[in-house]
């Protein structure tokens, strides 16, 4: 279902053609990094720390080096030690420990050998002597005075006066507006609570994998799964101390990323092993390694207080947001502060965030990073306000809804946004207008994410038969090939399947930033449109040459050159490309740009659940999500992103969590014990695409990949409360926790 505010009529944009890469993926022909086999290729294995925190006293590789098939062994000392102020230093120290291991699973050494078994056995034969250090796993413990320090030189920034002693808090962020004390004192209603979430993993189905082939000329070619091969190149170069021109990265198909493949883990190790062995080296993570050593999203502890009037106007917010970044600091709490009250106009607030390090895997981005935890707190308390004042939760959100020109909590004024339209879409939906079935509970929540632009490049070449090739530098993680082809088809006026969209490697297409922040269709699409518009100018010129007229007398419409004076019959694109050799040569255009004006994203969702009062199991009975896509270029993939975000949010809310024992060892590093939702757990996720066009994009696009994961946490908490009377403020709302809450009668009386 699509609700459109104002959109021109398009011929191709907004249609649902079969994706160009669909058949290969359905029949298993698509090539992923782990599929690649090269002549003479070796296999790598990484030795990982058994300790959560320990000093490395020595690494003895002599016995391992003498084992059959072993061709190369590396450890942290084999890489340059970047200076303390280098922005990539933490990344390099995460990929291979130096001096200390910071979490269980931290890479310590790597082996390349003829077979995988030989590599594994040799890695296990490496003798590492550790001095085990005290570790800390939880935010509260890490912030205690006297807690074990992960980084002896880490001084908290953003605190006045600057502390003289190190701690596990890397940064304090604060956003303030108005007079929050006075607003709380004047409020008719004050609600508050503390909310906690655990680290959870992005859960992509394809583990990290790469092959590196370093030649005698000192150059390397890397095939890998990533969300951005140009970043793979730059980060690999940084870790090796190489110039980027020595590295070519060829993007393989990607089996899911969700933010977790915006950084690297394997590529410099495979490259260094390959350089030492003189052979290609493949590294493929096991699922266990993916959990132990790649980025989960942060755990969090959020204390929030909201003040409101009896009429439902939210007048004050005080938030304290602590996010754990894993073993190295991040910007997670800062993002949380920027998101926590963004779906609401609040005149008075203090939003304070602290970045905390703990002895767990280093966090990576996960769809709308930091926003879901913040929304869990906010939209749970907003639900309480709605109950206390006796308002419909949508009416209350409409009353407090920001609009264009209002000031966002993080400073700038909102551009054109579609939150109100999403709220209205849910309000008017059949789902919301119907009553929940007997015994079911209903919950509602909203969510926000910024979306970004960044750098993108595209090259569009026209072939002699009138077809086109569109080359971009954005890996296709969610149907972006089809979106690029649709925008090119719309511009050029040729069939979408006459266009072949290609993801080019780092040497065939211009620099393109990583696919993150829901940017690919927005930013790379903008580059495709710009290149196509350049081409249309060229096509008009060629037609003018063939017609022997002034180019100003030629226009481009619906795939044809037309003469403004009507002296010539319209000439199809294929007729012009067929004569390209005689009229000036091949037709092609390239565009590279920094995309500006990404449109913020909002989503509003409603869910019905049933709760088994004997087991605490929550069943999602019905789910509807409305999201502003600006313009849906390919509605199937917009809906897919919306549904995917919701499903991952359901897993986060109900089941998923990293479980560590007291030694800091992860106890559930596999999909049997770390349960993500599967199809049989879920109803069809109903989608309503709201289209409030982004005026900064030629087709009105705003990113759709992330915001869908934000509302499910509070929506489900609110639905469980509606069904049982229990308010649950700690995730996951797994059966034991739900049962305990029901049994304890953890209600708010609302």
């Amino acid at each position: 279902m699509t609700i459109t505010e104002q959109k021109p009529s398009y011929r191709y944009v907004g249609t649902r053609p079969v994706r160009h890469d669909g058949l290969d993926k359905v029949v298993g022909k698509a090539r992923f990094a782990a599929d690649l086999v090269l002549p003479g290729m070796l296999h790598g294995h990484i030795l990982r720390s058994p300790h959560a925190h320990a000093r490395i006293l020595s690494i003895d590789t002599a016995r391992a080096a003498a084992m059959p098939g072993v061709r190369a062994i590396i450890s942290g000392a084999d890489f340059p030690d970047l200076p303390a102020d280098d922005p990539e230093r933490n990344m390099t120290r995460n990929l291979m420990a130096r001096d200390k291991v910071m979490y269980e699973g931290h890479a310590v050494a790597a082996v390349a050998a003829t077979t995988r078994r030989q590599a594994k056995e040799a890695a296990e034969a490496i003798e590492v002597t550790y001095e085990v250090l005290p570790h800390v796993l939880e935010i509260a413990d890490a912030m205690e005075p006297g807690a074990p320090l992960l980084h002896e030189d880490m001084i908290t920034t953003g605190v006045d006066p600057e502390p003289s002693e190190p701690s596990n808090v890397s940064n304090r962020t604060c956003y303030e507006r108005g007079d929050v004390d006075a607003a709380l004192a004047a409020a008719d209603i004050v609600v508050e609570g503390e909310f906690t979430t655990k680290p959870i993993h992005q859960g992509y189905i394809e583990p990290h994998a790469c092959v590196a082939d370093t030649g005698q000329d000192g150059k390397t070619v890397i095939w890998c799964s990533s969300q951005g091969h140009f970043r793979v190149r730059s980060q690999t170069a940084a870790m090796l101390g190489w110039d980027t021109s020595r590295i070519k990265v060829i993007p393989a198909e990607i089996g899911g990323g969700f933010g977790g493949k915006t950084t690297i883990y394997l590529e410099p190790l495979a490259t260094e092993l390959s350089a030492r062995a003189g052979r290609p080296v493949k590294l493929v993570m096991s699922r266990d390694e993916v959990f132990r050593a790649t980025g989960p999203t942060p755990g969090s502890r959020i204390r929030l207080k909201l003040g409101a009037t009896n009429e439902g106007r939210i007048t004050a917010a005080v938030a304290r947001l602590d996010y754990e970044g894993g073993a190295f600091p991040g910007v997670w709490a800062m993002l949380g502060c920027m998101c926590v009250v963004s779906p609401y106009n609040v005149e008075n607030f203090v939003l304070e965030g602290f970045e905390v390090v703990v002895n767990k895997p280093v966090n990576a981005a996960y769809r709308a990073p930091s926003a879901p935890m913040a929304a869990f707190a906010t939209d749970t308390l907003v639900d309480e306000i709605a109950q206390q004042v006796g308002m419909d939760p949508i009416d209350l959100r409409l009353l407090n809804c920001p609009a264009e020109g209002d000031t966002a909590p993080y400073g700038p004024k909102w551009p054109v946004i579609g939150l109100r339209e999403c709220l209205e879409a849910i309000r008017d939906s059949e789902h919301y207008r119907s009553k929940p079935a007997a015994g079911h509970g209903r919950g509602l929540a909203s969510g926000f994410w910024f979306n970004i632009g960044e750098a993108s490049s595209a090259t569009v070449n026209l072939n002699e038969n009138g077809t086109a090739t569109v080359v971009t530098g954005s890996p296709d993680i969610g149907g972006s090939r089809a979106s690029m082809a649709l925008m090119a088809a719309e511009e050029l006026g040729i069939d979408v399947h006459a266009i072949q969209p290609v993801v080019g490697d780092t040497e065939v297409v211009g620099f393109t930033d990583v696919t993150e922040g829901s940017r690919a269709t927005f930013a790379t699409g903008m580059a495709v449109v710009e290149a196509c518009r350049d081409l249309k100018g060229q096509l008009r010129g060629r037609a003018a040459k063939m017609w022997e007229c002034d180019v100003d007398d030629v226009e481009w419409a619906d795939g044809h050159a037309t003469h403004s004076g009507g002296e010539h019959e319209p000439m199809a694109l294929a007729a012009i490309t067929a004569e390209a050799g005689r009229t000036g040569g091949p037709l092609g255009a390239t565009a590279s740009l920094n995309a500006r004006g990404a449109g913020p994203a909002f989503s509003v969702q409603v869910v019905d659940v049933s709760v088994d009062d004997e087991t605490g199991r929550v069943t999602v009975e019905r789910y509807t999500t409305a999201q502003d896509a600006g313009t849906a270029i390919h509605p199937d993939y917009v809906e897919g992103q919306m549904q995917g975000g919701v499903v991952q949010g359901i897993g986060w809310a109900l089941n998923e969590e990293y479980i560590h024992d007291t030694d800091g060892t992860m106890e559930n590093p596999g999909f049997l014990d770390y349960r993500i939702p599967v199809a049989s757990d879920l109803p069809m996720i109903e989608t309503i695409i709201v289209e409030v066009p982004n005026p900064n994009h030629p087709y009105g696009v705003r990113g759709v990949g992330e915001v869908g994961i934000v509302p499910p946490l509070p929506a489900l908490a609110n639905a469980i409360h509606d069904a049982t009377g229990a308010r649950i403020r700690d995730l996951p709302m797994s059966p034991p926790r739900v049962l305990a809450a029901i049994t304890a009668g953890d209600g708010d009386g609302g």
Partner: protein
Amino acid sequence: MAQVHFSSNQRRLTGGAAEVEVEAETVRELLGKLEEMFPGIRAHLDRTSATAVAIDGDIIPDPIYEPVPPGAEVHFITPLAGG
């Protein structure tokens, strides 16, 4: 004149000022003038990763050469990424 707004963290370096007016044609010139007004603020922005700017609501991740239109509203924020 651009209106430059400071978050509460940044106000530690501005003597508490929440906003100032600065005449500058580019972000680089604006940063130079802010450093003259509030010594140390440039290093603070770098250290706290507040190196992106929002100019009239448009968030620009690497803005040093970016023009600052007259009357623009400028905020310093962290470069945003995502998943």
